[in-house]
Structures are given as C-alpha cells and as structure tokens.
C-alpha cells in the first residue's frame, strides 16, 4: 500500500507493475508506479503538447 500524493488516499499495490499509470480511487489523479518492493507511487507526468515534432 501507498498514499496518493494528491489526497493521501490509500492505494492498493495488488497486481500493479512498475511504470503502470492508474487513477487514484478517490481524487482521480493519475499516478505512476515507481516500484513494488516497496510499493511507491508518484504523480504521473502530464503529457505536454508536442508542437511541430
């Protein structure tokens, strides 16, 4: 288990894999799994606009 950095909701680690992006069950913020041993999440990076590339 870990805590959502935005709202501190408990985030369950079951079935999650490193790099997975998923919404927080309470506030909907997109989170990214940093690691599973121990389980840790961070705010997922937002996609920036990709002008002209």
């Amino acid at each position, binding site marked *: 288990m870990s805590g959502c950095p*935005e*709202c501190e*909701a408990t985030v369950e680690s079951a079935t999650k894999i490193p790099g997975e992006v998923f919404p927080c069950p309470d*506030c*909907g*913020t997109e989170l990214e799994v940093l690691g599973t041993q121990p389980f840790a999440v961070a705010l997922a990076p937002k996609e920036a606009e990709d002008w002209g590339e």
Partner: protein
Amino acid sequence: MKVAVVGGSGYVGGELLRILLRHPEVEVAQVTSESRAGQPVGRAHPNLRKATDLTFVPRARLAAADATFVAAPHGQAHAIVPGLLDAGAPVFDLSADYRLHDPAAYPEYYGAAHPHPELLSLSVYGLPELHRDPLRTADLVAVPGCIATASILALHPLVRSGLLADGPVVVDAKSGSSASGQDAGPAGQHAERAGVMRAYAPTGHRHTAEIEQETGARVALSCHSVEAVRGVLATVHAATVRAVETKELWRAYRAAYGNEPFVRIVHETDGIHREPEPKILAGTNFCDVGFAADTHVPRVVALGAIDNLGKGAAGNAVQCFNVRMGFPETAGLEFLGLHPI
C-alpha cells in the same frame, strides 16, 4: 412491518411511497390524503401505476401502524404528531414542525409560537451522519429540510476541523422547482419558472435556523431557484484562519464521512464531473460533498449536492427509519441514479 404515510399525495409523499413500496422489510398499509381521498395512488403519482392497489384514505380512517411517516405541510404536522406518538409507534415527520430544539426560534422563523414545545426535546434531528445513536431509540424523528441537509453535510467537517475563522459562513443554495411542493403558487407557473435564476430568499430563509443548530456556525444563507425539477446544490464560502491545503480538507472530510453509506466525497482532478452536482443524484439517497482550497485568499469553498426529494426528504426519512428499526441502513435505498439524465 406495516407503515403508514400521512399526507401522501404531494411530491415528498410520492417519493416516500416509491421507496417504501420496494423496501424489503415494509408493507405500506395506508396512505392518507384529504384532497385525494378515494383516489388510487397512481393517479397522484403516475410512476407508481400498477405498483400498488392502495387508494388514499382520509386521515380520520388512519389505523395504527408499526411506524408512521408524516409528509404533511409545515404547520399541519404540529397537530398530527401528538396523536401518533400517543399510539406508541415511531413517527418520522418530514415537516419543519419539530426540527428546532429552541421554541423561541419558531416565532422568528415560522411566524408563530410552537403549540407543543414540550415535544421539541423529544424529537431527534434526522441526520444519521450526525445523530445515528440517538436515532436508534427515537420516538419522534424530525427529518431535515433539503437545503439544510446539503448545507449541513457540506459544512460539518469544516466546523469540526477547527480551520474556520471567526465570523459568519456564507451558504449560497440553488434548488429545483419540486422543492416548493405541488402548491408552489404563482412562482411555480411555467411562465414564471422556465429559465429561472431567481434569488427568492437572499436573506432570512427558514433553514438558517436548522443549519446553525446542527453545525454551531453562524450562517448567512441565500437561496435561489434554478432551472431544474430536482436537486439542491449548497455552496459554502468559509473564511479560514490560514491558508489551507487540499490534503487537510481530504483528511477532514474522510474523518467525518469515511464510513458513511450515503455521503460521497467528490473532489477529482480530472474529468468533467470533478465536484458534486445534483443532476446525477436524481432519485438517489446520496449526498455528494466536495471542497476547494482557495489559494488567493484564506478561504475554503465546500459543496453539498442532493436530490431534494431523496436525501433532502424521503430517502433520508427511510434511512432514519432503517436506523431506528434496526434494518440495514441502505435497505430500499440502493438506486444509483441515472447518467446521462
């Protein structure tokens, strides 16, 4: 369990019947109406066609039941409730007549002295989120008003948090037309109501007294009519002692409502439904509460959204009934609403 509904021909009565007719522990034994006595229930409430063979009876023919819901207008329940209490079964009064504990508040907010002030200490304010334990043994449950319900549930965690600055809390409430009942008068005519955004009570709304009684906050309430049939949205503007972080608000609301079956904390960072809105709550017993911390001035905005006929009246009354009778609290109230609607 046999229940009776007194004053069942109005919108609240119809919503009570809709819920109670499908409640797994309930048989609706009688429903009264003076104006529709002898008529089938489905004539007043067409959504209940074929759902029941009940016809309205005059109150003079009311027989004893295991519990009675009173959906009579404000000012009429005064006279009805004492006799029902004498019969010994719990009474769930959806009018304002027994909501305020202080008899002196009735002349100020309802224009007349209370005829049975001795019963006010007997009544329990019917909001399970605040008074679940007293409700378990209550003889008389005073079901809150719709605007009061949305406002109290939005404001209560903030008061508990200790974050509020001194001074009044501003509550700006919007409500749909069914909150005025079937006899809304000229203000309810289609030509007057369609497209409306009307401040019908910028100050002095009666529910001010309930909100203050239940939250302990000093409240400045303004009420508006908007273009909707069902729904109340209460927007609370509360000055805080310092800048508040969103995480603190999550903690405060989770502490108050983390285990509540009908209060959902809604404050999402993405999507189009980020904060509570009453539209998707039509027909449900949910109160969605939300919040936002203002980074410009030390202020919190809190939101409470309900269906005025659901959590704002009939649904909440049945929730109180379930608590009182020891039934599962969600019995009869599982409807999740419609989307889109």
